[in-house]
């Protein structure tokens, strides 16, 4: 009985320990997106132009890197329950910013043509440049 009890205690200890390890690793990864400094700081127009002019070069420069893009809001969308802000780029190419689940900003407060600074991970371009895990970069708001 006592042996069983200590075994139970031990396994409970390990469960609690692994939970805390998981928590700390998780918060570390989460922090790394929100609190990391952007590697590149670029205007939405400039980013769109770079991808239009040389997609391959821009892919190797920006893909999977944290960047801060600033530009004017073209529109916001809640399609498929994703909070998305689209920034004006060129006439043909915009910047699609898919907000991170931890970004709690209310999309309604953003107006068309308002300038925003958005930090996210660049994933490349189709017709538009795509950024995921985005956060509104409040420190850089004008």
């Amino acid at each position: 009985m006592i042996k069983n009890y200590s075994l139970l205690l031990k396994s409970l200890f390990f469960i609690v320990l692994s939970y805390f390890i998981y928590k700390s690793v998780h918060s570390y990864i989460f922090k790394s997106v929100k609190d990391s400094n952007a590697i590149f700081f670029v205007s939405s127009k400039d980013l769109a132009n770079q991808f239009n002019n040389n997609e391959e070069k821009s892919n190797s420069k920006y893909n999977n890197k944290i960047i801060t893009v600033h530009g004017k809001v073209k529109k916001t969308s809640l399609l498929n329950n994703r909070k998305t802000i689209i920034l004006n780029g060129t006439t043909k190419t915009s910047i699609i910013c898919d907000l991170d689940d931890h970004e709690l900003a209310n999309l309604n407060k953003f107006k068309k043509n308002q300038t925003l600074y958005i930090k996210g991970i660049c994933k490349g371009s189709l017709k538009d440049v795509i950024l995921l895990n985005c956060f509104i970069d409040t420190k850089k708001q004008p």
Partner: protein
Amino acid sequence: MNKLALFFILALFKTGNLLSQQHIARQGQVTFFSYTSVENIEAKNNQVLSILDVEKKEMAVSMLMRAFVFKKDLMREHFNESYIESDLYPKATFEGHFNNLEGSLNQTSLMKGKITIHGITKNIDIKTTIKKTGESYAISGEFNLTVKDFNIKIPPILSSNIAKVVLVKFKFQYLGYESN
């Protein structure tokens, strides 16, 4: 002179008309599911690009493999680095032709097309549901893909974690080309 003006007006009208036949979805959704007894894997891409040409009954799709979101980071890492090799093959594409596309009713239509993943192109038939509301179209459907058809190598140690056949679902909401 009048005839020339008329010609230009007609030409303009014609181009305008052609343009209006093209519809675009910039935030299409593609989801895939892999069910095994060991674990279930689900990944979603919400930034899929698709162009629908109603006149030609054609549809084209392009997506970034890196934009698939997984529940676990490790799954995403394996997917991009080992299986799909996103650096070498960043996009998956599809081009298809509808059997019928009346453009007015809610209908199902069979689409025949070619899908390219991991640099390999396969013919595929997909049953689609088409809904038209006002000027916008919504197209959805699902199909199965066999992993080994696309030369995706899964190490034996993980083979029980990943289904041999993966279910793919898609959902596109189109807007007129100009208004987007």
